[in-house]
């Protein structure tokens, strides 16, 4: 098994593939979080919105990624090879995972803490951003870690429909019946997942220094 020959032959493509893989995994994570925060807040604030939001997002999870990648062109009017399809699909999965976690995280803040904040003169908005959200950071962060790792792995599925990124190594290895490119690809994806995981962990620690023990 030669791990280097494939990498040397495709040295020109590697940077582009890595970049596509990284942004396809990262952008949906950020957009998904930006959408899930207000939705999760809504679900925690108005109890009747919780069951429909959590059920709807749960159903989204049963749709295989490959299916979502090919249905989206029909819904969005995009081309079938368009990377936008992959980005939108992964954003949907991220939102699906995070809405419930954000809602549960915000609801789990003890009423004593909230009363204390109110007694100190915090307005509802200050209380949300200054108390509730920071306390929920470790919980939301843990959900974000799961979403990040699963996003990275799902990007590789997009190579079946021909979106050029690191998953191409699996397809090429399979077509050439050589193990080298496949092992290269597996290493690349696991390393990428670890990097994402590490960065999010770093973010959680920076945003909630008091919760170090809880994370370890």
């Amino acid at each position: 098994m030669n791990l280097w020959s494939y990498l040397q032959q495709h040295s020109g493509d590697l940077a582009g593939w890595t970049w596509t893989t990284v942004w396809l995994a990262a952008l949906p994570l950020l957009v998904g979080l930006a959408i899930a925060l207000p939705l999760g807040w809504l679900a925690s604030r108005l109890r009747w919105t919780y069951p429909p939001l959590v059920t709807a997002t749960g159903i989204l999870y049963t749709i295989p990624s490959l299916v979502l990648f090919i249905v989206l062109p029909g819904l969005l009017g995009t081309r079938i090879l368009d990377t936008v399809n992959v980005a939108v699909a992964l954003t949907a999965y991220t939102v699906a995972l995070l809405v419930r976690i954000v809602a549960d995280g915000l609801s789990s803040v003890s009423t004593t803490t909230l009363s204390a904040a109110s007694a100190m003169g915090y307005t509802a908005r200050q209380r949300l951003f200054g108390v509730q959200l920071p306390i929920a950071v470790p919980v939301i962060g843990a959900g974000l870690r799961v979403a990040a790792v699963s996003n990275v792995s799902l990007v590789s599925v997009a190579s079946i429909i021909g979106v050029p990124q690191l998953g191409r190594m699996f397809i090429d290895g399979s077509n050439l019946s050589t193990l080298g490119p496949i092992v290269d690809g597996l290493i690349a994806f696991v390393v990428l997942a670890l990097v994402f995981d590490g960065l999010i962990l770093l973010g959680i620690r920076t945003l909630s220094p008091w919760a170090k023990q809880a994370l370890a």
Partner: protein
Amino acid sequence: MSTAAVIADKFLPGLDRVPVWLNDPANWTGPNGLLERIGQHLGYSVSAVVVALLIALPLGLVIGHTGRGVFLVVGLANGLRAVPILGLLLLLVVWLSPHLHARLTVPGLIPPGGFAYIVPIEIALVLLAIPPILSNTYAGVQAVDPAVRDAGEGMGMRGSQVIWQVEFPCALPLVMSGLRSATLQVIATATVAAYVPFLGGLGRFILDGQDQLTNLRYGYPAMVSAGIVVAVLAVVVDLLLALVQRLVVSRGVAERYRRRRGVRAVPEPA
């Protein structure tokens, strides 16, 4: 994808062709029809989940009971999550398949010559299904009230009796939720089986449709329809398992379980 397909891509048939496709009985029956593909898809999925259950359930019960190997379980579950299943599958195909020479065939499920390729997909699906079942079983046993366990031991039960008659029934709700999320993931992922030579399943429509997107019978409408069937299949099987869960979980345990809310494992898209 060929250049012809890329050009055709601009003129994708609309999603309104999907109900038309699904309404055509010719697409359901006959060789390579939806019914046959559903059978194959379920065959790959169910056998993988059963094997995973046979491995993960005893292991989870023992780990939960003894408290040994917890580190291994957590590490395994997190590590496997980071491995892309497509890469794992193709690695096994390139590595194992040339060494498998058994001529086992099962009509409708394993075609002649397909055995060498069914093994990799089954291994990949089993590896996918083990972590949710294993970690939920272990967590379920760990969550059993120590007083209940003590009562079992106080009644003179042996270790194995405590596991099977006390801890297992109490952990059953969590075991079932692990089994359900594993099944969802496996059914969704079995679509990838079609990427392997000789194999079918519902993914066949999705892969074969790519080179003839505009074809109203085999192209984009068939791909989307098959995708919808996969999602519906996953939901139906999940509902069946929910029913099984209602039947097998003791009512006393279920009531206590309902009060402890929010323990269902987070399923992952696959």
